[in-house]
C-alpha cells in the first residue's frame, strides 16, 4: 500500500530524512518511532504530498508522491491527524467535519451518516452543535480523528495522536485506532509512546534521520536485547559473588540483594544458575524472568545510532 524507496528530504544543508526504504502493507498498522527531530513528521508530510521530496521515491497505491498529477489522487485516498489538531474553534463539531467532507466531495447523505457514526463512536454526538473551541484537548483530538475518517480514507496517517492526552482520553483514542484497524484500514502511526506502539502496531520502524531498524514488536525485542533472569536473595556479599562467578559463566550485575544475570536460553540455563546459587550458599527468595521491552530496544538502538 505504501512503498518507500531511498526517500530523502533536505532543508538547505540539513538532511531531515535520509534514504528511507520500507513498505507498509494494506491493512497494516505501522508504527514510526524516533526521538524529536528524527524526521517522523517530515516523512508523513512527504507521504501526504504536503512537502516535496529531495530524493528517492514513495508511492501510495499506484500513485507517486513526486508527480503533481498523482498528488491530488493520493490526498483523496488518505486521512491525516496532524500533531496539532488544527480544528476551527468557531465552527461546531458537526460543521468542522462537514467542511472536510465537502472538500473530499463526499456526497451529502453518506457524509452526514459518517459524521453521526464517528461522533457517536467517539462519544461526541451530544456535543455536535458545540463549538470546537469549547472542547477539551481530548475531545479535540477525538474530533480530529473523526475529521480524518469522514471521507472513508484507505490510509490514515497519525502524528502522535495521544501526545499530551490524559490517560482516559489516550485510551479512548487507542481503542478507536484498534477499532478502525479491524475495518482493514492501513494506519501509519508516528508516536513517542512505546507502550502504545507495542500494543497497536503490527510492525515498527525506528528512525533517526535514517531508518535504524524495522520489524514486528516481538522481532525487535528478540533481535536486540538479551533476556535477563532476576534473582532476589536473602543476602548478597562479596565472597558469595566470587564463589558464584566461578560456577556461572554468565554476566552478573548486582543491585542490593538482587542478581541480574544475562541468559541466552532461560529454560535451559536458569536451573543451572539456581543450583549454582544454592551451592554457593545463597538463599533464594524470588526468581523472575525479565522479558526485554520495546523501550529497552528503542533506547539501545537510538543510543547506538549516536
Amino acid at each position, binding site marked *: 500500500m505504501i512503498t518507500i524507496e531511498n526517500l530523502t528530504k533536505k*532543508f538547505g544543508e540539513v538532511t531531515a530524512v535520509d534514504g528511507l526504504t520500507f513498505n507498509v502493507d494494506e491493512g497494516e498498522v505501522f508504527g514510526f518511532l524516533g526521538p524529536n527531530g528524527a524526521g517522523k513528521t517530515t516523512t508523513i*508530510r512527504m507521504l*501526504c*504530498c*504536503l*512537502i*516535496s521530496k529531495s530524493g528517492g521515491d514513495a508511492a501510495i497505491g499506484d500513485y507517486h508522491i513526486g508527480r503533481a498529477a498523482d498528488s*491530488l*489522487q493520493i*490526498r*483523496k485516498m*488518505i486521512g*491525516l*491527524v*496532524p500533531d*496539532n*489538531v*488544527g*480544528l*476551527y*474553534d*468557531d*465552527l461546531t463539531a458537526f*460543521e468542522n467535519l462537514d*467542511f*472536510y467532507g*465537502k*472538500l*473530499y*466531495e463526499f456526497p451529502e447523505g453518506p457524509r452526514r451518516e459518517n459524521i453521526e457514526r464517528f461522533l457517536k463512536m467517539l462519544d461526541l454526538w451530544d456535543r455536535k452543535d458545540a463549538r470546537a473551541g469549547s472542547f477539551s484537548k481530548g475531545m479535540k483530538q477525538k474530533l*480530529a480523528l473523526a*475529521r*480524518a475518517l469522514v471521507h472513508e480514507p484507505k490510509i490514515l496517517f497519525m502524528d502522535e495522536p495521544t501526545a499530551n492526552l490524559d490517560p482516559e482520553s489516550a485510551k479512548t483514542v487507542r481503542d478507536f485506532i484498534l477499532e478502525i484497524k479491524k475495518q482493514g484500514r492501513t494506519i501509519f502511526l508516528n508516536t513517542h509512546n512505546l507502550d502504545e506502539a507495542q500494543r497497536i502496531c503490527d510492525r515498527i520502524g525506528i528512525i533517526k534521520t535514517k531508518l535504524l531498524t524495522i520489524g514486528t514488536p516481538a522481532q525487535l525485542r528478540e533481535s536486540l536485547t538479551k533476556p535477563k533472569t532476576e534473582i532476589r536473595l536473602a543476602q548478597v556479599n562479596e565472597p558469595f559473588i566470587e564463589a558464584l562467578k566461578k560456577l556461572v559463566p554468565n554476566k552478573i550485575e548486582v543491585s542490593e540483594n538482587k542478581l541480574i544475570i544475562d541468559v541466552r536460553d532461560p529454560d535451559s540455563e536458569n536451573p543451572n544458575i539456581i543450583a549454582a546459587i544454592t551451592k554457593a550458599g545463597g538463599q533464594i527468595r524470588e526468581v523472575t524472568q525479565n522479558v526485554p521491552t520495546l523501550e529497552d530496544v528503542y533506547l539501545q538502538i537510538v543510543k547506538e545510532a549516536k
Partner: protein
Amino acid sequence: MRISKAWIVAAKDMTIFLRKKYLIYSLVALPLIIGVGLPLVLHLVGAKKQALNGTALLSVMNAFSFFFGIGAAVLPIILASYSLVGEKIEKSLEPLLATPITDSELLLGKAFAAFIPPVCAIYISSIFFMGLSDLWTHNILGYSYFPNWNMGLILLAVVPLSALLSIGWSIIVSSRATDIRAAQLQSMLIVIPFFMIYVLTEIGTITLDTRTIGIIAGVILAADIILFFLSTKTFQREEILTKWT
C-alpha cells in the same frame, strides 16, 4: 481549478466571520460612516448656505466619492488578515492542505471570502450615500448630482480593484505575520496612497474627473497584477507549511 472547491473554503470563512463580533462591527461601521456620515456632513454644511457654493459643494462631493475606494481598500484587509493568520494560529493549514484542494483553489476561496462581504457592504452604503447626498444637496444644486459617471467608475472599477489589491497585499503580509492585529496594521500601509489621492483632491491638486479616475483604476489594476503574481508565489503549500508556521 474548481470554483466549487474555492467556494467551500469561502463559505466556511464567511461563517466564521459572522461569528466574530468585531469583524461584523468593522464591516458595518465604515460603510455606515461613508454612506450616512458623509452625506450628513454635506447636509450640515449645506444648511449654512454661505459655507459652500455649488461649485465647492460639487468638489467636496467628488472627493467624498473616493471614500468608497478607500473603504474598499480597508475592509478586505481586516477579513483577509483574519482568515490567513487565523488559519496559522489555529494550525489548521496542515489538515486543510492534506485534502484534495489545490493551492490556487484555496487562495481563490480566501480571496472570495475577503472580497464579497466588503464589496457588498460598500455597494449598499453607496446607495445610501447617493440617495442622502442628493436629498440634502438638491436644494443648493437644483438637481440630483448622483448617480454619475464618476461614481459609476469608482464603484465598478476602483472598488473591486482596490479590494483585490488589499487582498493580494494582505496575503504577502500575512505570510510573515503570526498575529492578526499586527498583520492588519502592516497591511493598512496599502491604504496610504488612497488617502493621498483624497487629500490631493481636497486641496485641489487633482480633479477627480472620469479621466483621472480611469487612470487611478489603471494604476491599481497594474499593481493588482504584480501583487497577484507575488501572492501566488507566496501561497504555495511547502512555503506555507515550512515557513509560514
